[in-house]
């Protein structure tokens, strides 16, 4: 992140350069196919495992190996699908299509104080004035907070924000609302960029221990979609089974 923040993030996709691997970094074909198989098997084992941590770790390592096989690239950051900008920021983005008009969805997001309901790892957003707000995030090490400012606000189209200089975690992000083709509603695209404490090693460690921002964002977007389309989240929590207590 450059010193003269906040500036509006670019209208189009921020630079998403994958770490480059030279020809020597390519894995031999045999190794790739073995890795692919083992990766799939681990993913299966991870999904089968009843223990959540094991599920995530086996699942991630499996997905990592499968990804290595698929791309033929070796670097751990690539294998774990951690994307980085040339400036060393970790980039997380995802999108979801929701069967509602863009204006409605924009209004929900523009209510910054309500954002913690959409993004579960956000603990609180306190609106300070027209532009500035105070964000508090739940982290494995405790809570982290910073001040942020809106860098763009285009009703029905786009909201962007950036942490003000001196934030504990440098970060910026944007939400785009685009009409989906046909009668499918609105495409909501979210892009977040942050500088992880501990650099890319920190990002890898966080990923392996299940603190996975890309997955969190995906879960948040799906929860948002379901809240908007259904008004509730489907669940099996509390259903009947033959496990201890008979619960799910």
């Amino acid at each position, binding site marked *: 992140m450059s010193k003269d923040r906040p500036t509006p993030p670019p209208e189009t996709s921020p630079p998403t350069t994958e770490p480059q691997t030279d020809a020597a970094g390519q894995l031999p074909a045999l190794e790739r196919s073995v890795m692919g*198989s*083992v990766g*799939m*098997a681990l*993913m*299966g*084992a991870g*999904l*089968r495992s*009843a223990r959540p941590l094991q599920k995530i770790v086996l*699942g991630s390592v499996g*997905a990592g190996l499968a990804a290595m096989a698929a791309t033929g690239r070796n670097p751990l950051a690539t294998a774990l699908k951690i994307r980085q900008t040339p400036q060393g920021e970790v980039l997380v983005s995802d999108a979801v*299509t929701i*069967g509602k008009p863009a204006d409605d969805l924009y209004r929900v997001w523009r209510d910054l104080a309500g954002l913690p309901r959409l993004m579960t790892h956000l603990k609180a957003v306190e609106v300070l004035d027209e532009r500035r707000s105070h964000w508090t995030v739940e982290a494995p090490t405790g809570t982290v907070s910073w001040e942020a400012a809106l860098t763009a606000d285009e009703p029905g189209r786009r909201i962007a924000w950036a942490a003000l200089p001196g934030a504990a975690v440098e970060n910026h992000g944007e939400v785009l609302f685009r009409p989906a083709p046909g009668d*499918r*509603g609105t495409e909501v695209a979210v892009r977040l960029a942050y500088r992880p404490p501990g650099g890319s090693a920190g990002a890898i460690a966080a990923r392996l221990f299940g603190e996975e921002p890309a*997955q969190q964002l*995906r*879960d948040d977007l*799906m929860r948002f*979609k*379901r809240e908007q*389309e*259904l008004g*509730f*989240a*489907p*669940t*099996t*929590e*509390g*259903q*009947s*089974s*033959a*496990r201890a207590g*008979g*619960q*799910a």
Partner: protein
Amino acid sequence: MKAIVWQGTNKVGVETVPDPTLLLPTDAIVKITSTAICGSDLHLLDGVIPSMEKGDILGHEFMGEVVEVGRDVRRLKVGDRVVVPFNISCGVCDPCRRGLFSACDNSNPNHRMAEALYGGVSGGGLFGYSHMYGGYAGGQAQYVRVPFADVGPHKIESDLRDEQVLFLTDIFPTGYQAAENCGIVPGRDVVAVFGAGPVGQFAARSAQMLGAAHVIVIDRVPERLAMAESAGCQVINYEQEDVLIALREATGGRGPDHVIDAVGMEAHGHGPGALVDTAKQRLKLSFDRITALRWALLSCAKGGTVSLPGVYGGLIDKVPMGAAFAKGLTFRMGQTHTHRHIAPLLSRIEAGEIDPSFVITHRASLDDAPELYKTFRDKQGGCIKVVLNPWA
């Protein structure tokens, strides 16, 4: 209540579990009057579907009587007699609105598991079919919780017996959709069906209902072939004949215009390809064995359709893609969009065009179910379809 429970690979048992309760205002509780064991339950028994957990209640083909409804349920009321589709759909997302009910965006609470395996998208939830498909408790039990109660359950208002309408929940629409996906030109097209299990039987009869000029059914189990033959199909026993040659002969060298693979990943099959598939599946390196799929691609006529109602779970290799490309085949596949087939197929049953109970060979109580899972899997005693009475 009593329920059939998954206890581990090759272990299914009857256990007493708590009665289900309403978890959301859009739920209903159904007292089950009839339920069935499906061929795809055997994949769970075999342990080839990931993300089953010990204690899960099985079963996704069931019907019964509504005994409780949540406060937001509008269309159903206590006392209604319903058949319940095996897939769970929200009814409002884009796939649901387009009639792609099994591809529902919103009904699977564990969407992230399927997303990890299937390219970032998950299908809808299924009753009693692993946590990847939502982890919903199934209906091989005395009661079941039915989510999205205004979307799935279909009222049966005529006096048709359970056995005549029960299979509207899965195998009849599944076989029908497989045939419908072929785009059969009435009076002209020849359809081959690999697998004469329950879905294959319904696929063959549906192809006939849709006007196929000729239907050929391939299997190795004599009782199953006899059932297909009694419906007027030509049959081929692949243990006695070379399938590809027999199909060429039966079609004047053209091959069947459409081929339905009603076997899926548990294809039996012979030869080195099949051995490799089985070994990989045992080692959990692959979920699927694909002899039937290979035959389907190799036998299908130029410009034909390969329709796949059989369940595929993971990655497959040694697929004769060259043959598929050379002949310009179309592939149609996917989990059944049960909801959209129930009303039209119920009309056909009411009109006497088909009586789906023809497929039943075994009737039993829940207590007998663990034994019958094995009977069905091993195709013993002429077993084609098992119906269970939870109150017997």
